[in-house]
């Protein structure tokens, strides 16, 4: 009798173990942004224990003392002042139909950057700040701006400036398309590409704080918070789109068109996992 019970007991234990084993396996395929974000932040907080969470939004300047001093000097009178002022001027200059960007955005576009990108359930896709600005222009009969040139850079610089200090507040609605976009963004972030065979993570997860020649790599956590960035390298304000496109070419991967799905989704992923960290854009960068 004893043996039978033992067998039965053994059997149920086995079944239980199998179940438990099965659960995490399916859990891994289940898209869980909340868990991802927690793990993502933990990885960087453990990797850089001396940094406070908000330090991550200053990218390379929180990684290297020499760079930090040069940044502090620049911030006294930052070169992006002109872009912010140009953006402010453009923001309130009426379109031909008399409307302005203020009519397209909640709260007249002031202090809302931290909510972008968002998942637009009507369009069924992720809408970034840059896309929303061009959709506003086209909706008012104006030609869209290039995503990589000064006009878009100035507008986003001004909108980011009005959100400085506000924590990222990216939402993923309970809509399978939103979850899919988020997951595709995550996959893009970790996928190796180009002849150099790097993914975004190769530089920004495996080796933040280290140098690529003279440039110190920024951690992925908080990397969107400073956008758009005034890079000394470009001696001008650069949009998020420009950053993605140039990063692709640097690893010898052919870039997509700015604001293609992959770019909007990876921005969605990177912004979401940085929820809670303050907006620091427009940021000055090397």
């Amino acid at each position, binding site marked *: 009798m004893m043996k039978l019970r033992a067998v039965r007991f053994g059997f149920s234990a086995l079944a239980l173990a199998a179940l438990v084993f099965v659960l995490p396996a399916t859990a891994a395929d289940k898209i869980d942004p909340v868990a991802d974000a927690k793990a993502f932040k933990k990885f960087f907080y453990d990797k850089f224990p001396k940094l406070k969470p908000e330090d991550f939004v200053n990218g390379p300047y929180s990684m290297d003392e020499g760079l930090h001093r040069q940044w502090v000097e620049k911030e006294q*009178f930052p070169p992006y002042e002109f872009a912010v002022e140009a953006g402010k001027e453009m923001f309130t200059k009426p379109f031909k139909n008399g409307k302005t960007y203020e009519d397209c955005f909640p709260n007249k576009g002031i202090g809302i950057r931290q909510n972008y990108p968002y998942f637009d359930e009507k369009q069924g896709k992720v809408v970034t700040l840059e896309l929303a600005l061009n959709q506003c222009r086209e909706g008012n009969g104006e030609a869209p701006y290039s995503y990589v040139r000064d006009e878009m850079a100035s507008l986003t610089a001004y909108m980011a400036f009005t959100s400085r200090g506000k924590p990222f507040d990216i939402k993923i609605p309970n809509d399978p398309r939103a979850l899919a976009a988020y997951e595709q963004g995550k996959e893009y972030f970790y996928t190796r590409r180009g002849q150099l065979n790097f993914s975004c993570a190769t530089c920004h997860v495996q080796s933040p704080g280290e140098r690529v020649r003279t440039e110190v790599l920024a951690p992925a956590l908080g990397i969107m918070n400073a956008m758009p960035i005034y890079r000394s390298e470009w*001696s001008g304000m650069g949009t998020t789109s420009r950053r993605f496109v140039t990063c692709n070419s640097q690893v010898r991967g052919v870039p997509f068109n700015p604001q293609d799905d992959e770019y909007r989704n990876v921005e969605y992923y990177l912004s979401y996992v940085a929820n809670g960290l303050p907006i620091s854009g427009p940021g000055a960068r090397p």
Partner: protein
Amino acid sequence: MASTIRVRATNNGDITEVQALIQHPMDSGFVKDSKGEIIPAHFIQQLTFEYDGKPVFLADWGGGVSKDPYVKFAFKGGKKGDELKVSWVDNKGATDSTTAKIG
């Protein structure tokens, strides 16, 4: 057109600290554009700061000064509310000037 000169002048009793950021390409004449042609030299040559009719600082610049140039200096004297006259001229003869209130 808004002035190309941004000035911050603050007085703390006996010294007035001045910072200026100027919108200018400061092309050195040694850089090629994407089509491989040399971008001609175009940079601010002289920048002057005057307080109470007297020069308090004069900069002679070459093409090696950064784009959207920045400079910081200080001079003894100056009072809150007084004006500081700032003006520049570049190698093409273009000029701009502004007056800033000492804060």
